[in-house]
């Protein structure tokens, strides 16, 4: 089956970010003094474990970023027609999760629907009972076998996961130790994660592990798909924040005078508007523009995607002011230092002073503020989607999941799994990001005095 690769706008931005990240990593690797703080991060057990968790999330997100459209079997005058549905490599990997949709709600690991319906049995009688699911537990002949079957599958999966985990740990232990990474915490984390993944994967072949939502979609699939949206909001926003804050902050601090006045004026105006309101206003106006120009988009995915990129843009515009203020202050302080004055006396051009002497000395502020902002942005997405100014309702995200599940709280008995799953995945992602950010801050903040040498 042929397919057509699709690069949505956000995909392109993710690839750009990835390239920039790899370039930075390569640059840092060459320079021992830049590596030093990262070594400190690598020694911290919490940092490395949270980095492991984060990289799993990033892996899912990246797989979900490689998009394509499948060719349809029928041809139009010899020309291949592609399906309007945009899929990703991740969708392909978990095809059963995506395709096996039920009629409506079903509880985690359930074999029947959540509400009673009228069923016509073989002899033609109508009775009210819980109908069996189309896919969840459909291999069972008797509903009562569910518990033992799920237990058996879960245990088998956990064992397989454990064995794989042990293999990974044995294989990588020496490598960790060589680099001075915390071996024990990392090994334990790898074991726990592989057991979890093994159990889930084994159960997911026959059941809906986290249940299904109102239209019968698998909640586990939705949660995994939400990861990409959250990660994009958290990272692509920095593409806007970083150039604005770095350029304007340093310019204001170094040149002072009217440049400083103008830049200060701009960021005071922007920061004086409560950010939710500014985002709401901008998203509303963007929505009008998008609705007025349906001809811009060939698929609904590209429309939702443009809205996501726009949202990142707007979040970036509202959030660069804090970093800009910090950088301006730091530059003001740096430009009075003797080494800058010496450079000026030697006749070094201002451009060179900025790039060579000032920029490297404010980079720790940039890095700390970027990693600290990430978790806030992931959380903000959920709130904004609730307010109605977040991502497109057709785009799967933690916000849209919570929004859809919120109304189910009133049902009796309660539909709790979609909410729990969204909050749970979000908690793990944000907690890992927060812990990692703390370790990065501790390692890079020069105000925290360290005398111990790390070599």
């Amino acid at each position, binding site marked *: 089956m042929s397919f057509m690769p699709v690069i949505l706008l956000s995909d392109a931005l993710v690839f750009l970010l990835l390239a920039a990240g790899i370039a930075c990593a390569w640059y840092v690797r060459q320079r021992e003094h830049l590596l030093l703080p990262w070594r400190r991060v690598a020694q911290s057990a919490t940092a490395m474990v949270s980095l492991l968790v984060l990289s799993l999330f990033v892996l899912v997100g990246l797989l979900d970023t490689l998009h394509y459209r499948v060719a349809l079997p029928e041809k139009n005058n010899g020309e291949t027609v592609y399906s309007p549905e945009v899929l990703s490599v991740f969708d392909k990997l978990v095809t059963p999760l995506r395709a096996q949709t039920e009629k409506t709600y079903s509880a985690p690991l359930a074999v029947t629907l959540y509400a009673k319906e009228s069923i016509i049995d073989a002899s033609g009688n109508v009775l009210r009972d819980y109908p069996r699911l189309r896919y969840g537990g459909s291999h069972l002949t008797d509903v009562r076998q569910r518990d033992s079957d799920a237990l058996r599958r879960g245990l088998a999966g956990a064992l397989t996961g454990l064995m794989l985990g042990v293999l990974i740990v044995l294989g990588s232990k020496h490598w960790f130790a060589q680099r001075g990474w915390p071996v024990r915490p990392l090994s334990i984390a790898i074991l726990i994660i592989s057991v979890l993944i093994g159990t889930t994967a084994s159960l997911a072949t026959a059941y809906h592990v986290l249940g299904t939502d109102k239209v019968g979609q698998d909640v586990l699939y939705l949660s995994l798909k939400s990861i990409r949206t959250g990660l994009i909001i958290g990272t692509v926003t920095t593409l806007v924040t970083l150039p604005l804050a770095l350029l304007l902050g340093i310019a204001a601090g170094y040149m002072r005078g009217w440049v400083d006045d103008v830049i200060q004026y701009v960021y005071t105006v*922007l920061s004086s508007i*409560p950010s939710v309101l500014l985002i709401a206003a901008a998203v509303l106006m963007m929505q009008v523009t998008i609705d007025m120009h349906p001809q811009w988009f060939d698929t609904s995915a590209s429309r939702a995607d443009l809205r996501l990129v726009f949202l990142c843009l707007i979040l970036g515009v509202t959030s660069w002011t804090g970093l800009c203020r910090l950088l301006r202050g730091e530059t003001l302080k740096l430009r009075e230092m003797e080494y800058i004055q010496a450079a000026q006396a030697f006749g070094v051009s201002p451009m060179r002073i900025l790039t060579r002497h000032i920029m490297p000395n404010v980079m720790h502020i940039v890095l700390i503020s970027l990693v600290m902002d990430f978790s806030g942005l992931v959380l903000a997405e959920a709130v904004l989607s609730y307010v109605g100014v977040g991502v497109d309702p057709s785009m799967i995200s933690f916000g849209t999941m919570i929004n859809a599940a919120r109304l189910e709280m009133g049902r009796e008995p309660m539909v709790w799994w979609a909410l729990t799953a969204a909050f749970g995945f979000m908690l793990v992602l944000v907690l890992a990001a927060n812990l990692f950010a703390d370790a990065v801050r501790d390692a890079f903040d020069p105000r925290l005095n360290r005398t111990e040498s790390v070599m």
Partner: protein
Amino acid sequence: MIAYLIRRILYSLPILVGVNLLTFALFFVVNTPDDMARMQLGIKRVTPDAIAQWKQQHGYDKPLLLNSAASGTGKITGTIFWQKSASMFVLDFGYSDDGRNIGREIATRMWPSLSIALPTFLVGLVVYITFALLMTLFRATALDIAGVALCVLLMSVSGLFYIIGGQFVVSKLWHLVPISGYTGGLDSFKFVVLPIAIGVIGSVGSSSRWYRTIFLEEIGKDYVRTARAKGLSELAVLFRHVLKNAMIPILTGVVVVIPLLFMGSLLTESFFGIPGLGSYTIDAINAQDFSVVRAMVFLGSLLYIAGLILTDISYTIADPRVRLS
């Protein structure tokens, strides 16, 4: 002092002008009033007549910046900018899409907002500072580490979870208070107590950690050593000396939000059905009522600037060394 304040207020005028121009550009230049009319009336099958009528009804049928058809001052005053944007400087917010006076709505709706936001703010302040001081008291012990870990955990939970979880446990399982609603007067206690509690718990993590950092920075200073050398107990040192000296950074972060309390909280109010400014804003966003959103943006920045001025005044009260001139 008075002269300083007058100058400060004059300085903030250009910022308000900037906010005003920005919202004007956002709401009228990015999308023309025609686009908005089409949006409100439904995208398809809209006749030009219907658009013209909608624009006339809502006062959008004038030129944006310069009315060349009018004469005299009418050239300036007969424009959308003058009537919709510049008028906000005299707190004339115009009418919402359903024909109500936005200024009057704001005046009545800010009291329910305040009845939630003010207690949340005050209780929160006491709780966060006490918690942070306790962590500072037990600094570098297992208690402190546990406290910080708890803070990080609490910070990582979505704010929506606190609201949904709190409503579920307290109202649905335990039936202690109604899920949502509001009445005026003292009866409203049962409606506001849960939103206040959730508001306080919702930011206990980030706030306490922030205060703890401030206190830890103070505790290394010389006056603390002197106070200990005098034989003061650690508690007295913390609550009497450190707290007072940490006042300037605390005030910097805290006073600026006081005026914004009038605006209420979008999430809390809409979940708990409080008829305040927060839910007003959310309803306006959902109904795409641009005039209300515009008014709230302007009001929000006005209150924020008031908060900045209040912060300056509060410095002189907290620290006699600071003189405004």
